[in-house]
């Protein structure tokens, strides 16, 4: 990776720390706008600027902004680079900065959703549950710590790549590795789902025979069919309440002797 002279260690460190707080002021109207601005202020603070420059700078970034927090480093680094180039006299119109921010923000949000929320999170949490079930609670905890460290590394690296690439970030996005990673991680999550289902089933079979296994199976059917029947997905908490209602019905239906 080409290290640009503008991205000193101190600036990168400051931007990195601020990037970790990207969503601290998340709000429904403009989402991460203040968070992005807070991150870019690390760069602005190192420039000699007048009030007029700062006012225009704030206006540029006070608009709606949303992206995936784990991949935001590419964009924050890229924007700092474009601002630095602009300050050095490069012909970068304000509208181009806006288009760059919005289009890349959306793209990274979509990639991040697929990679982290729909792939890595279910896979990691299911594997952690399996480890915890086997009695390796510290291993389960360590798994989250390892993820935490890796995502910090990704954010640090992406900040440097974003700054180094500037306008070339779309080239990074076009790399086939993204889609391969999404495919592999999603399949890992699916296998982890199967593993969890199998381990829980075997455990319940061992603990209480068929009745507990039947309740577990009923849970799977309920989780699978409720969104299909209602034609909308419900949060886990509401599903939990529906599950309670079903259990309550079963509690009244089964006799103590047969329970």
């Amino acid at each position: 990776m080409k290290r640009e002279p503008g991205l000193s260690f101190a600036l990168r460190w400051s931007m990195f720390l601020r990037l970790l707080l990207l969503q601290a002021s998340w709000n429904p109207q403009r989402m991460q706008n203040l968070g992005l601005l807070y991150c870019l202020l690390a760069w602005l603070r190192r420039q000699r600027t007048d009030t007029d420059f700062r006012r225009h700078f704030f206006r540029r970034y006070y608009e709606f902004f949303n992206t995936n927090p784990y991949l935001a480093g590419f964009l924050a680094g890229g924007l700092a680079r474009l601002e630095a180039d602009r300050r050095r006299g490069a012909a970068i119109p304000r509208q181009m900065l806006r288009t760059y921010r919005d289009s890349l923000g959306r793209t990274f949000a979509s990639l991040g959703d697929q990679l982290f929320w729909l792939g890595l999170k279910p896979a990691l949490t299911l594997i952690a549950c399996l480890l915890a079930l086997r009695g390796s609670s510290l291993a389960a905890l360590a798994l989250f710590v390892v993820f935490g460290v890796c995502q910090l590394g990704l954010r640090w690296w992406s900040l440097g790549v974003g700054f180094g690439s500037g306008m070339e970030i779309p080239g990074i996005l076009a790399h086939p590795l993204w889609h391969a990673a999404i495919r592999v991680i999603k399949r890992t999550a699916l296998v982890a789902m199967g593993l969890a289902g199998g381990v829980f089933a075997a455990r319940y079979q061992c603990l209480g025979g068929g009745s507990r296994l039947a309740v577990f199976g009923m849970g799977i059917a309920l989780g699978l069919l409720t969104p299909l029947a209602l034609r909308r997905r419900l949060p886990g908490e509401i599903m939990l309440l529906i599950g309670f209602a079903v259990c309550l019905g079963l509690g009244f239906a089964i006799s103590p002797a047969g329970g």
Partner: protein
Amino acid sequence: MLSGVGFLAVVPVSAWSPLALTGLLAGLLCLDETAAVQSWLSQPLPAALLTGLVWGRPDVGLALGVPLQMALVGNLPVGQSFVADAVTATIAVTAAACRIPLAGLGLPVPGVPVDLALWGWLLLGAGLLSMLGHWVIQAERAAFGLWMHEGRSSLIDGDPGRLEHLHLRCLAVSFLRGSSLSLVAMLLVQGLWWPGFAHLGAPVHRGLGLMPFLLPGLGLGALAERYGWRRCGPWVLGGAGLALLFCRVVGP
């Protein structure tokens, strides 16, 4: 019950140190959920486990963390309009269960009796608390929206300090919200929810006893639906086959 000395009496002096640690942990994990870092240590399993460790009862943390994590595994923040507060709920219920202290609460293993109904009651309590947290988070975000508009003054006078101050104020509010609500919810679970268990009838106890076995399946089913069962079936079935083979060789 929740007034004056009677309310404070549920907190003995010797418990202040883990209580303070629980408040600190809750504040930090609430930040981790959305505001800062997002390391996923705020997921129900690690949150419950860490709370259990703070109170010297990691077994209780596991007993509550695993079914909650499984039940909420399909909660993915993608196009989500309902934002529950699982962190506060998990920490509050786990800390209360550690403080009571409850015998017979742990992941079931052959030969060790577990109070399944009480386990289900606590899991239900965590679910309800998490749902209630939705409105608190909505109120917090509405306040952040108002403060964001307050920052417009910097667009006129060019003061970066105001924007930084606003952003950090939001961070502090999230920390305080997580910290204080977890402790209040913990006292509510200890003072109201747990005593309420004794007044439930036998059929409700039987129903609650089924909850810990239903919840993991519920979460897996919801996740399978999200992925598209038909398309992903072979991978899931392959994993299940591997698990059954493993359990046959090593034991469940």
